[in-house]
């Protein structure tokens, strides 16, 4: 026969745009990532029906209280008086700060009240009782 048989063209998916797609994903994750600064102490937070989502991750300050009545803010154990001073600083540097209270469900309300008074003293009055959705 004259001429050679044409080889059937192989269908290949072009991967040229793959780096662009990966780049886009990368940028998305870079922008949305907020690094966790503090670990806190282990607490078992209560569960409720009406747990609302808190917006603005960057405005949240955490305050942990565990069963043995240890108070932890920014990974430092402190007394209610120290809570006042640190929360006052947070409040002045960011007026939109929301304090997320991660309190163990078996805590007594006594210590909760003490910390709340400390927060009132610091004028950091917007708080959230951290809970799980039931």
């Amino acid at each position: 026969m004259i001429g050679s048989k044409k080889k059937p063209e192989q269908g290949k998916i072009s991967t040229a745009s793959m780096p662009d797609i990966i780049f886009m994903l990368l940028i998305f994750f870079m922008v949305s990532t907020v690094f966790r600064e503090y670990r806190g102490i282990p607490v078992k937070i209560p569960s409720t029906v009406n747990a609302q989502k808190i917006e603005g991750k960057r405005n949240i300050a955490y305050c942990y209280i565990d069963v043995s009545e240890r108070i932890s803010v920014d990974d430092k154990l402190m007394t209610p008086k120290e809570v006042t001073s640190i929360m006052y600083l947070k409040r002045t540097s960011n007026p939109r700060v929301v304090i997320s209270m991660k309190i163990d469900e078996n805590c007594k309300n006594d210590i909760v009240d003490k910390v709340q008074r400390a927060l009132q003293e610091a004028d950091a009055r917007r708080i959230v009782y951290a809970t799980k959705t039931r």
Partner: protein
Amino acid sequence: MLNKPEKKKEDINASSMADITFLLLVFFLVTTTVSSDKGIKFVLPQKADDVTPTKIKGVVNVFLNDDNQVLIGKKGKEEEVSIQQVKSKLMLLDREIASQGDSIIVSIKVTSGSLYKNYVEILDQVKSAKIDRISLAQ
């Protein structure tokens, strides 16, 4: 004369860029934590040194004691209920108060020895009853 050899164009090899970005992407994927901050929002009252007692209508007291028993009702007419009944009781009282032309205010009073989870449970029930006016007595 001999022909000058053509200068070769030098390109930076970009084929490994995809791999590098992939690596970065995986790093951010792993470190990102999906926000799961949920809770019951509450605004503490302003610090007041001298609290003057005021007469407001429509106040419903909710007491929680050291034995985690709950008393609920208007002043002087409180009765004991279980925590799960707080919502239905509040809705009843809300309707009753609304029919008198007032709006309900829930005043929560907890003793220092009561458990935090019961306090949160009461708050949750109040929110379930769609009542926003909450006062926290200390």
